[in-house]
């Protein structure tokens, strides 16, 4: 143990750090923190590659592993936090008195806060102009989670979403307290082939 050089000592220290980081990534539960951990994990591996005399691999790891991949992680995790609602009714269900104080908004806000989601409401003209027949297609193919329409005759609001989604079933149980809200669940269309 006498001829241990500085570089070898650093290498051991970095390896131990790597193991700690790996354990932290495996054990930790918050995805946001894990992204930071995985970026530092990638940087530590890159420095270990350099200590192992592999600068080419280190450049590749820094450029891909700690720049592009974490960005993709960030996008994909932020997508898993949003709940997108398409408001086709466009009346005081969501916005009353130019503020987000409508009945529906309060319900949805309560729901998304409960499950740590971010509520995103749109009433984009191009999407709203699509006929009611294409609602299911819209739900399945774009990332719209919920469509709000209004039945003028019975004066009830209809919330449409996919049956396969866990979130919609939870929303269904929450909306049971309201009389004028009805939740419609689209069955998964099995194309078969």
């Amino acid at each position: 143990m006498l001829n241990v050089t500085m570089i070898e000592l650093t290498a051991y220290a970095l390896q131990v750090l790597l193991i700690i980081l790996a354990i932290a990534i495996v054990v930790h539960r918050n995805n946001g923190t894990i992204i930071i951990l995985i970026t530092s994990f990638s940087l530590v591996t890159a420095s270990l590659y350099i200590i192992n005399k592999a600068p080419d691999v280190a450049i590749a790891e820094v450029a891909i592993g700690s720049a592009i991949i974490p960005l993709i992680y960030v996008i994909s995790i932020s997508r898993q936090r949003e709940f997108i609602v398409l408001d086709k009714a466009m009346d005081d269900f969501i916005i009353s008195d130019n503020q987000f104080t409508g009945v529906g908004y309060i319900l949805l806000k309560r729901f998304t806060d409960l499950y740590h989601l971010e509520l995103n409401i749109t009433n984009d003209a191009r999407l709203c102009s699509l006929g009611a027949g294409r609602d299911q297609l819209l739900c399945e193919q774009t990332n719209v989670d919920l469509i709000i329409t209004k039945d003028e005759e019975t004066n009830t609001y209809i919330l449409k979403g996919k049956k396969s989604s866990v979130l919609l079933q939870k929303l269904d149980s929450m909306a049971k307290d309201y009389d004028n809200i009805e939740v419609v669940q689209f069955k998964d269309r099995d194309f078969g082939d």
Partner: protein
Amino acid sequence: MDPILTFVVILIGFYGLSTSTNIIKSVFCVTIIESGVILLFLNLGNLDGGTIPIVGEGVTMIADPLPQALMITTIVIGSTVTALALMLCIKVFHHYGTVEWAEILRREEGK
């Protein structure tokens, strides 16, 4: 530098893979295993007294260049695998409203 310590990183990755219940977590664990494997190969290819694999005057011994070339390939492969898995993960979340493996697999067709 110790290959055994590197192998421990790989095993931690497998531990995570076989205990984590979350898709994103599984993708993270695959990344960890991959980094560990790359490090192990480079570690073994780093010969005593070698320099970085660029030849010039007076270079007598270098680190083995073949593992390094192979590992660049592995990094590119690993990143594409991760990207594809994350895209599928977004889609799975959008469809099922959750990214828990057990929850997703429980929702069988027709139920």
